């Protein structure tokens, strides 16, 4: 594959296997139950393009970029024509106020933190899963994976302003869904029982 002898000669299989745990965890956040399909698609595209990857040090970023594209395409193919917006993104209420106003943990002196801590990891994935992928993908990439908004815009092939607007609305939806999820699953009462 490499004729100059200056680049290491790891095979596709070696590099891909090394990346697998990372790819899967990112796919799980981006595409929840369809993580495995998305990883397979990513592996297939990566295999075809592998000869173009000259520097194997760049493999993690290279694979992740392909994976994000696969997750995005996957959703795009399934969500075409999906309803653009139905929730009230413009509502002024915030999760902070809702918690404050409804005071779900009357005996807590760190109400908001206790609310967050009533969610375990599984709960967080389930809340993410409720978001439209258009909102979930930027939210995960920026706030969980630590990519800059400019990088995410490049990855998704979208204008920066569009990504910023998805992020903005995504955070709002995430807050709303956190509240709904906590109510539906009785997280708050459980948190209170643990305290008392």
């Amino acid at each position, binding site marked *: 594959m490499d004729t100059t002898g200056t680049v290491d000669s790891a095979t596709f299989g070696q590099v891909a296997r090394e990346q697998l745990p990372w790819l899967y965890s990112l796919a799980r*956040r981006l595409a929840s139950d369809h993580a495995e399909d998305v990883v397979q698609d990513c592996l297939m595209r990566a295999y075809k393009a592998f000869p173009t990857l000259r520097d194997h040090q760049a493999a993690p970023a290279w694979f992740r970029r392909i994976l994000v594209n696969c997750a995005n395409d996957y959703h795009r193919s399934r969500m075409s024509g999906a309803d653009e917006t139905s929730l009230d993104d413009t509502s002024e209420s915030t999760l902070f106020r809702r918690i404050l106003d409804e005071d779900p943990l009357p005996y807590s002196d760190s109400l908001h933190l206790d609310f*967050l801590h009533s969610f375990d990891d599984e709960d967080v994935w389930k809340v993410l899963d409720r978001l439209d992928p258009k909102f979930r993908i930027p939210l995960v990439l920026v706030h969980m994976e630590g990519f800059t908004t400019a990088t995410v815009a490049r990855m998704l092939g979208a204008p920066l302003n569009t990504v910023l607007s998805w992020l903005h609305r995504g955070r709002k939806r995430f807050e709303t869904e956190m509240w709904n999820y906590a109510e539906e699953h009785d997280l708050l009462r459980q948190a209170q029982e643990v305290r008392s």
Partner: protein
Amino acid sequence: MIDCTTAVTQLWDFVERELDAGDKANIEEHLAFCRRCCGEVEFVEELRSFLKDAARPGLPLDAEQRLGQFITDLEESGP
């Protein structure tokens, strides 16, 4: 002076230092007298760390085996 509604929509960008100097000054001015929005900022910080520190989903053994096999098959299929 900006109101709470305006302030609240910019708090994430404020925390992430993505506001320009003018907007940043407006928020700081608002926070200097609005206790409620100070609470909002604190919660934004908490929610940010909460997301950042969320555990990475693990790769289950059966998925690892299937995907490992998938890689083997790809390699055997040739370029």
